[in-house]
């Protein structure tokens, strides 16, 4: 086999891992969309906010220090301690749960029974609010996030696969971080699916997703369910924030990963958790393979920027409900 064949496999594997990262973001959208019919525009910003908060806790940053300094003329920045990653993650999770509670109390509660477009607009507002609030709280500078996940190429794998493709092939180059992200995302999805299928709260979540009136009539509190769903979405955002933040730093552009999640959702369907995963994999592998096989040799490269959207467009034409979405059949 030629070296190119093995490089193709390497591209494929890297595509899969990139796809898993897309899936992580898409998952947050699906969870909220299923349970409350809201397309949560703020999902990307939630990931950014979670990552900012995590870095802030880790480095012992004082929240709102810039604001405090500006108002009182003080000069405070840090508490002076360094928090272990696991503790910081737990605190951040608590912040995200608090955030879910506040969103329910101050936004969703007042918009019950409104059109989906109104709720969508509300989440746009929420996104901009959080973006500014995150900056105000933790500062707008680019931060480095390190929670102890190994980064860089996996040398062992590279050395032990080098024999495969002859003298021109140097072994598979896979990033440790990507591999960890894949494992984490896999665990996350499996546990979410198990939770929603086999626990009473999971059943209540699915019930609310299906019919609000009926859910109320069997004693489900919609507000409690919404807090739970937004907390889970916050947790997913945190995981996505950790992975993307470790990869490329915590900065505003982190919130733009949601643009990559959109084609994933169109492929996988807005209502399917497995769909978000498979959609992410197809987009990830598709864009990397397209670049490798067609983009670079024939089109001059840089096809990764638009390939996902092209694919999504094709899906919209031929299968608008996505691969796994519920096909709406109206009984007459």
């Amino acid at each position, binding site marked *: 086999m030629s070296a190119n064949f093995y490089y193709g496999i390497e591209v494929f594997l890297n595509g899969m891992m990139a796809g898993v990262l897309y899936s992580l973001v898409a998952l947050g959208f699906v969870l909220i969309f299923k349970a409350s019919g809201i397309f949560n525009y703020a999902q990307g910003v939630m990931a950014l906010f979670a990552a900012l908060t995590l870095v802030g806790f880790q480095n012992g940053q004082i929240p709102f220090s810039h604001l405090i300094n500006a108002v009182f003329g003080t000069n405070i920045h840090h508490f002076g301690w360094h928090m272990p990653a696991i503790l910081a993650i737990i605190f951040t999770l608590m912040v995200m749960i608090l955030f879910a509670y506040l969103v329910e109390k101050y936004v969703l509660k007042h918009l019950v029974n409104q059109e989906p477009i109104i709720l969508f607009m509300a989440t746009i507002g929420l996104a901009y609010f959080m973006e500014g609030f995150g900056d105000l709280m933790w500062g707008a500078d680019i931060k480095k996030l390190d929670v102890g996940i190994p980064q860089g190429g996996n040398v062992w794998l590279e050395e032990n696969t080098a024999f495969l493709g002859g003298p021109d092939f140097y072994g598979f180059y896979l990033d440790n971080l990507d591999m960890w992200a894949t494992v984490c995302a896999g665990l996350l999805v499996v546990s979410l699916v198990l939770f929603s299928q086999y626990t009473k709260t999971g*059943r209540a979540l699915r019930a609310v997703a*299906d019919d609000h009136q009926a859910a109320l009539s*069997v004693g489900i509190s919609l507000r409690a369910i919404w807090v739970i769903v937004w907390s889970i979405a916050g947790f997913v955002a945190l995981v996505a924030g950790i992975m993307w933040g470790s990869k490329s730093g915590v900065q505003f552009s982190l919130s733009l990963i949601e643009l990559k999640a959109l084609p994933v959702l169109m492929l996988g369907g807005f209502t399917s958790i497995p769909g978000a995963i498979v959609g992410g994999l197809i987009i990830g592998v598709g864009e990397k393979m397209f670049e490798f096989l067609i983009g670079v040799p024939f089109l001059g490269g840089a096809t990764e920027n638009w390939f996902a959207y092209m694919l999504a467009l094709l899906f919209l034409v031929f299968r608008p409900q996505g691969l796994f979405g519920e096909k709406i059949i109206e009984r007459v």
Partner: protein
Amino acid sequence: MQDSYVTADGRTIGATVMEMKNITLRFGGVTAIKDISFDIREGEVRAIIGPNGAGKSSMLNVINGFYHPQEGEVWFHGKRRHAMKPHQIAKQGIARTFQNIALFKGMSTLDNIMTGRLTHMKSGLFSQTMWWGGAQAEEVANREIVEKVIHFLEIQAIRKTPVGRLPYGFQKRVELGRALAAEPKLLLLDEPMAGMNVEEKEDMSRFILDVNDEFGTTIVLIEHDMGVVMDIADRVVVMDYGKKIGDGTPDEVRNNQDVIDAYLGVAHD
């Protein structure tokens, strides 16, 4: 408080469970229910009948908390009930079905009926997440009760089928099952036989009577089919244009001139 008595078919009708006192419900300028009072006694099958738009479903929605009346009081178990959310009322033991079936269409029959058990399940979120301690035992115990309901309603064959795919008659039955699984003290049925053929109606009547007979569940029932109502109800409230025009046993109601006028029309001259 009235004394309890035994019906001709041997069921015991107890004291008043719920009392509606001077209920008035308005939507903007439209008055859906006008100053209606009636009581529901323990163990009875209480029917609410009336022409379309009489306010029957609104009355059911008041009982179950979807609507809050502008005037009047609801008394439950001898205490005045304050304005509550529907999910809180469900926890008090009031279950219902809907006129236009409201099932969780993407979920299986089994899962749908399991949601009826939610008010009885107490395990915490953490215990559920870890599948530790009480959560698993609770799930098994409640599943057993659900299996009994499935057996009772003779729907074993469709237990794993997503209910969205079931024919109408079965969906109605699953919805009844979900309400029954809650082991309600008061069961509200909004037109359980609407759109059914004679055979399905007979089945449904039998289930309703069996529920009432075997579990002693108090049932409030809205129905259009007069024949069915006269057969299965102990007492009947008749509504027309939001007002109560009759209340009593099927025989009394049948001979009430106002009721006859409302159903057959009256000459305006």
